[in-house]
């Protein structure tokens, strides 16, 4: 039983990581409109805050957090991720903002894609 608990604590758990991403992005971008002077600051803040909170989970993982913010100008955007890793231990979580639950989703002037990858040490 103790071994099972400790192995669960050590895995890259999507249920723990996704709320971190959601909360940070919602906090930084809440009610904001695309502003080219501020957007670099936003992506950096989002990445830094997510990284700090994930590091605080104190798991034996290396992390990569990437954040993309795109102005809603009608242009098409396609983003793909692929990895060469250990399928049993490594994992990835993505969050797309604004999500379906946001009421004024169609009026948002920008989109944000945040990806967190965890690789076991």
């Amino acid at each position, binding site marked *: 039983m103790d071994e099972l608990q400790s192995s669960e604590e050590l895995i890259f758990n999507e249920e723990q990581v996704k709320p971190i991403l959601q909360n940070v992005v919602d906090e930084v971008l809440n009610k904001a409109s*695309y502003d080219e002077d501020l957007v670099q600051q936003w992506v950096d803040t989002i990445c830094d805050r997510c990284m700090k909170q994930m590091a605080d989970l104190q798991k034996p993982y290396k992390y*990569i957090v*990437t954040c993309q913010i*795109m*102005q809603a100008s009608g*242009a098409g955007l396609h*983003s*793909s991720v692929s990895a060469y*890793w250990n399928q049993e231990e490594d994992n990835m979580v993505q969050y797309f903002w604004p999500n379906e639950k946001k009421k004024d989703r169609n009026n948002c002037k920008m989109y944000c894609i945040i*990806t967190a990858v965890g690789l076991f040490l």
Partner: protein
Amino acid sequence: MDFQEGGEEFSAEDVETVIKNTIAVVLESAMYNPKKVNDWCNSIIDSCLKELQSLSRPYKYVITAVIMQRNGGGLVTSSAPFWDGQKDGVCKVSWDNETMHAVVTVYGLSVNIDNQSEMD
């Protein structure tokens, strides 16, 4: 998988060459086409990953590819890693033509060679 010995640091130059060659092959003379962009992204990533595997280095890789239509809209990206500052590294290549931008990023994270049998 057998790994080459030595080469303890991430070689951004070698990886940059791989990425540039791959983008040139996949996107040469292409015009932005929403029906094809999915295939382009997957081709770029698959080719890069195969070439990187063939380098036989003790690294795990994460590759991201972003293709955006060029119509004046802004796109800003950032990343933050939590890794081994001496052995791990990143290489990013930007490419564009008249109709689209492409940004391909490769992150290389060193692995303990004793665990090489676990790599997929």
